């Protein structure tokens, strides 16, 4: 016997479950606390023999299960009704019945997985392959078909000789003294081993990179980009003319589009009449659009004072009598069709916006050539006192 080693405990093995129960009872009643029973399977009645309190594992399950349910419900509430609410199948955003399946699944998932992890890590303090009981004859026999009890040296009443005597009285098959194993260093924590891991990681990732990118020229996944479909403004081999985009069939009209009947005529003999009343909103709209599209050439007040400083021929003022005599329809026609160097704005300004611009031009024209009666009207409305 090597007396230099530190004793972990003294173990006794028994042949039948009845014997181990009696032994456990005697050990408990003799006042030992730091002892353990090792059996190849749970023996009924052992918990009461050892006076072990019922497991508290259920609390872990309860808490994690309830939090699983709460997390699931809150998360679904947040995604489906707050972050990105979508009407799906006419159901409310917070469609509780439809959330129950996922809530249930997450409850079960969280509860079971955390129960098992908590059991192994917190209750068992496993993994522990360095425990002194491992690799002993005792462990081998209780792993198979014997029933063993160990009184540990940490117990207050532990004394090698008396404990051995005590256990001998229980009439065991065998008594074994178990020592702490000599300290060994685990290879996993050696710096050399960690270095090896780093090197392996670097070689594998570097090799994969070179292999895929430099030797095989495999591009990364961009399945969304490279789809077998026609892309706008791209060529295609599908059509003989090589164009990906198609022109509409002749005589067809896009949905919502109202054709303009006088397109291409420089001096139409008849024009449309203005379908929009010059309401405040309409004029506001026209003002906005005028400043965006018209004012660069026509000037902010339609005086023809282009901001382009001669880079483009200045248009005439719209306050001339010719301009003022244009019907609404004619101005609309000019915006739609273009005139002289002015191009057509039909594709940039919608129909409604064009009519709104017409209304706004009328506002400018009237403001520039206001009559006295207008002034009286204005003073009346604003309460000011402006004279001509």
């Amino acid at each position: 016997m090597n007396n230099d080693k530190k004793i972990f405990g003294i173990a006794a093995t028994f042949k039948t479950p009845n014997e181990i129960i009696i032994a456990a009872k005697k050990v408990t009643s003799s006042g030992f606390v730091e002892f353990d029973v090792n059996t190849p399977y749970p023996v009924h009645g052992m918990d009461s023999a050892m006076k072990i309190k019922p497991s508290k594992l259920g609390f872990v399950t309860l808490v994690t299960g309830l939090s699983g349910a709460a997390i699931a419900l809150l998360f679904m509430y947040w995604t489906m009704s707050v972050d990105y609410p979508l009407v799906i199948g006419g159901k409310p955003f917070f469609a509780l019945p439809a959330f129950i399946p996922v809530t249930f699944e997450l409850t079960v998932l969280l509860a079971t997985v955390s129960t098992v992890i908590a059991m192994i890590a917190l209750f068992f303090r496993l993994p522990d392959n360095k425990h002194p009981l491992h690799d002993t004859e005792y462990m081998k026999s209780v792993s198979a078909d014997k029933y063993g009890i160990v009184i540990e040296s940490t117990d207050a009443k532990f004394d090698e000789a008396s404990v051995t005597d005590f256990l001998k009285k229980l009439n065991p098959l065998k008594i074994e003294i178990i020592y702490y194993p000599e300290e060994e260093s685990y290879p996993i924590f050696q710096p050399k081993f960690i270095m090896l891991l780093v090197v392996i990681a670097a070689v594998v990732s570097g090799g994969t990179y070179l292999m895929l990118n430099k030797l095989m020229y495999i591009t990364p996944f961009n399945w969304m980009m490279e789809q077998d479909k026609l892309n706008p403004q791209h060529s295609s081999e599908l059509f003989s003319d090589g164009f990906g985009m198609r022109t509409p069939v002749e005589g067809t009209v896009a949905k919502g589009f109202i054709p303009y009947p006088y397109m291409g005529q420089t001096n139409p003999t008849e024009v449309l009449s203005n379908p929009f009343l010059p309401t405040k909103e309409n004029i506001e709209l026209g003002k906005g659009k005028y400043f965006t599209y018209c004012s660069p050439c026509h000037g902010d007040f339609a005086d023809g004072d282009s901001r382009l400083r001669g880079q483009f021929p200045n248009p005439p003022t719209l306050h001339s009598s010719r301009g003022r005599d244009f019907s609404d329809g004619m101005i609309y026609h000019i915006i739609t069709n273009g005139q002289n160097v002015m191009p057509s704005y039909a594709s940039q300004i919608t129909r409604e916006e064009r009519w709104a611009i017409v209304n706004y031009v009328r506002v400018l024209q009237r403001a520039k050539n206001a009559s006295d009666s207008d002034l009286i009207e204005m003073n009346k409305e604003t309460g000011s006192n402006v004279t001509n």
Partner: protein
Amino acid sequence: MNIDYSQEVPTVAGRLTPAQIEELVAKPMETKPNKKYFIALSISVSLLLIGATFLAFSFYYGTGLWGNNQPVGWAFPIVNFVFWVGIGHAGTLISAILFLLRQKWRTGIARFAEAMTIFAVMCAGIFPIIHTGRPWLAGYLTPYPNQHSLWVNFTSPLVWDVFAVSTYFTVSFVFWYVGLIPDFATLRDRTASKLKKTIYSVFSLGWRHSNRHWTHYEKSYILLAGFATPLVLSVHTIVSFDFAVSILPGWHTTIFPPYFVAGAIFSGFAMVVTVLVFVRKIFDLQHIITLDHLEKMNKVILLTGMMVGYAYAMEFFIAWYSGVQAEQFVFINRAFGPYAWAYWIMVSCNVIFPQFFWFKKIRRSIPAMMVIVILVNVGMWFERFVITVTSLSRDFLPSSWAYYRPTIVDFGILLGSFGLFFTLVILFTKSLPVVSISEVKAVADGAQPTHHGGTDHE
């Protein structure tokens, strides 16, 4: 044969001692596989490779190689998915529900059935993923903050499926592993090979068979079983929701959840019996997986078969009773329409043939039960086929009716899934204990103290 009802039937036959049990279970892992093993393995691997080849073709050329087309877009992949998920239900059922019902006979078959669950769910998981046509994008099914700022649709039964099946797989796996820990420890302590010892040590986590641990361990088993039981029900319930929340006649009917669950137990038990019959013979486990256990499983098959029959009848009756024309048509169409052949295979295999299990002789005869359980497996596959295909092929609009025909690629992938399943099963039998050593030891004769400690007269 007269049974003495005053005595419990021993769970382990032949009065085996714990050492003998351990010897029997550990033997396959300690002996070199023989020729037959390799023949079986090569057959199943070939099937797996056939499946893999067809799958590779499908990936390369696209899912157009399959028979799926308008209006039957949910053909073989969904049928196979539901079929395999159903097979996967027996394992957790045996380990959880029978555990809660304190059916000791479960100990002999639980480990194997749990392993089959895990393998079957793996087979099942393949199908919805490949059915999307872009399996590499399967990650979009998980709700994570992404560049599209979109979330998955939590009101969709397909998303419920993702949660249900992945939870089911995880929990089954955890359950299975927790059961394996003491067995790994036992194997660790009996092996002579150093390599094996290291591997077993790692997986046993240093388990010491300590009673202070067993207390928590047993509690955790109850808790896990308590969760796994509703989980089992929920998984196939959610699978049934895939169909039943729609408004398609033949899919939308309220009995679907319990009906699918009963069907899953039915098919799962049939598959377990199919495999166990071979396993107990090959590995000499007749004393641990006894004829009594098989008979009990056959009784469950009979019972669940009748439940499935009840659901068929109820669907038919309520379809007539409802007075809804589309409902009535669907069921007449199933039984007498173009897919009548599939329907009658389903009815005869699932409802009629299991009725033979009313006879004790047939319940206890290995060849007879083999025939019936294989028929049940066939029948349950056809049940899913009938549900999925007949309803889709003829729905509300007669102008869009079409007859669905699977292609050879469909069959190849189905075959491949069987190959995967059996390959995993065969590998499992040689690498892990097919029977829970510690659990069977605990129910063997004389394993438990006589009334809480023999001399105890308190």
